[in-house]
């Protein structure tokens, strides 16, 4: 069963199209991440699911039910907003109990439920405090506790870890994954952080310019992205994407690189293409060049990340980024270098549709 389904949903604000004939299928009982760059339309998508906004066209189904005429209150969704939005005039206990109280649960009946959720998130000691007496991480836990206290099947978390330091986020990653397993519910989580998406998600839905460009299980989506925006955005650092041309459907040329194409289908037509290669797949001054495409490059900047070097390059004025093991290269400095790429690591996408065409072969 699908937890959420969008069928050709369009949403405009003052003639500006925010969501364009969007189709989305979120599987039930999965940790689904809606991933997209800032401004891609994540908040609009969530507002449409929660019922805070209505679509101009199209249909939205929650667990198989058309919710076109169902109000936000009646959709029974657990919600963790982006900013904590904890009510400052309520105690932590009252904040967590808030959704239950609105459902008409008596205060004494809320106590065991709130205490159980508080134990789960290790915030029992905060229950009597006011939100302004809590630290940022504690507030976030309280906000998550309030979001999951309801007995429901769909939980929405709107970029809830933004602004928290990495250690705290790491701890909350574990908590969130564990909570989803315990609750057996669908978690819909939005973020613009590729690492967060890859760590948390079972399924990822890539949103770009108001459209879901690709959906799939995390590993498959990372390994075989079928859309250039997925390839470009889902990974750290962002994937290198640069223009090229496809001659007669078999050979690709771009900025000093020339390679044969193994087309994924029969649709490879001559014309402009986008070529993508992950920074991890670029080697600098490789010792063994067998099977590699080798081109000269200029190293413009080297950032030492400890275990890795983040290298900024230029190949015939096209900027590229590479991520290489720190131990792999001795005294890499700005200046001339050569880079090597396995042809199979070069993915080719249509310049017009962004769809995957094929990848390089030796």
């Amino acid at each position, binding site marked *: 069963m699908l937890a959420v389904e969008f069928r050709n949903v369009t949403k405009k604000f003052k003639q500006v199209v925010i969501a364009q004939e969007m189709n989305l299928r979120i599987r039930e009982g999965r940790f689904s991440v809606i991933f997209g760059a800032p401004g891609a339309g994540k908040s609009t998508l969530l507002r449409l699911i929660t019922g805070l906004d209505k679509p101009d066209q199209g249909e939205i189904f929650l667990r198989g039910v058309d919710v076109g005429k169902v109000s936000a209150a009646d959709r029974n969704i657990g919600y963790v907003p982006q*900013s904590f939005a904890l009510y400052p005039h309520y105690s932590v206990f009252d904040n967590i109990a808030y*959704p239950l109280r609105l459902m008409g649960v008596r205060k004494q009946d809320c106590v065991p439920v709130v205490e159980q959720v508080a134990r789960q998130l290790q915030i029992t000691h905060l229950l009597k405090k006011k939100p302004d007496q809590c630290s940022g991480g504690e507030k976030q836990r309280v906000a998550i506790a309030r979001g999951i206290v309801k007995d429901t099947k769909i939980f929405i978390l709107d970029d809830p870890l933004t602004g928290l330091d990495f250690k705290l986020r790491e701890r909350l990653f574990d908590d969130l994954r564990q909570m989803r397993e315990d609750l057996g519910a669908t978690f819909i989580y939005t973020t613009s952080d590729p690492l967060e998406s890859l760590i948390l998600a079972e399924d990822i839905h890539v949103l770009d310019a108001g459209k879901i460009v690709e959906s799939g299980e995390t590993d498959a989506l990372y390994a075989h992205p079928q859309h250039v925006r997925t390839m470009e955005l889902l990974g750290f650092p962002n994937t290198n994407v640069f223009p090229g041309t496809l001659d007669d459907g078999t050979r690709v040329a771009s900025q000093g690189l020339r390679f044969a194409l193994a087309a994924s289908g029969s649709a490879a037509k001559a014309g402009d293409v986008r070529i993508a290669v992950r920074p991890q797949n670029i080697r600098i001054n490789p010792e063994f060049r067998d099977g590699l495409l080798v081109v000269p490059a200029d190293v413009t900047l080297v950032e030492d990340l400890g275990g890795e070097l983040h290298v900024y390059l230029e190949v015939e004025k096209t900027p590229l980024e590479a991520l290489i093991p720190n131990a792999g290269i001795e005294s890499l400095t700005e200046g001339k270098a050569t880079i090597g790429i396995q042809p199979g690591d070069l993915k080719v996408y249509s310049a017009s549709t962004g769809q995957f065409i094929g990848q390089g072969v030796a």
Partner: protein
Amino acid sequence: MNRARGWRKTAYHVLLWVIALIFFAPILWIIMGAFKTTDGILAVPPQFVFVPTLDNFVDLFNRPNVLRYLGNSILMSSASVGIAIVVAFLAAYAFSRFKPRGTSFLMFMLLSIRMVPAVAVVIPVSLMYSALQWKDTYFGMIMIYAMFSIPFSVWILKGFVDGVSQRYDETALINGGSRWHIIFRVILPQVAPGLVAAFIFNLIFVWNEFLFSLILGGRDTTSIPVSFSTDLYSDGGVDWTFTASMATVYMIPPILSILFFQKYLLVGMTFGTVRGEV
């Protein structure tokens, strides 16, 4: 260096005290006058050491209409400002959250209304009140003061409501809260300082209002400011003991309300749009 800074600070404080005392002197004079005899009030040079008497207050409250004046002022100011705050809060919420078409123009108009000189309005309003037979009625007086208090209150309160993130509304809506629940249980507690600030600013305005009270009011609705003009003279001269004791009593409610709500008022004056206006 430190000594120079210390000197400058001391001089600054002395200057502030001198200015404060200059402005406070007339108030001190009238309060001291309330505890003096007529001769004591008019003595030259002024007496700073004297035997205080409460006779002026006994006389004041033995006058037939004084309690009615006081009651009228309290009733008209608290009722009109109370109504204004409720209406203004709802309007501020609507302007802030629903942003109806022409919000900026409407907000500008609200502020403009407040800038129209009272004398330009008082005659047409008086004619309207005569036609409606609202002159010298509590309803009529409360309505006119509420009308005057609403625009400024909307301005203050919209700034406060704007300062409360819409995420609070959305969290409540998704969890099943109604708009009324959001307005009164979610937003109102967070804008309480603004409500108190708006209430006190308007209370002081209505409490001090003279012109409309004189023109639209009458025997039944005489307020304290008007009573100064009607009861000021006796035996062919200014009744200084009445003036001093009435003025002293007149000052008590606003001072008490400011003292009582000082905490909120200070927050109110440094928050939302009030920051630029006070």
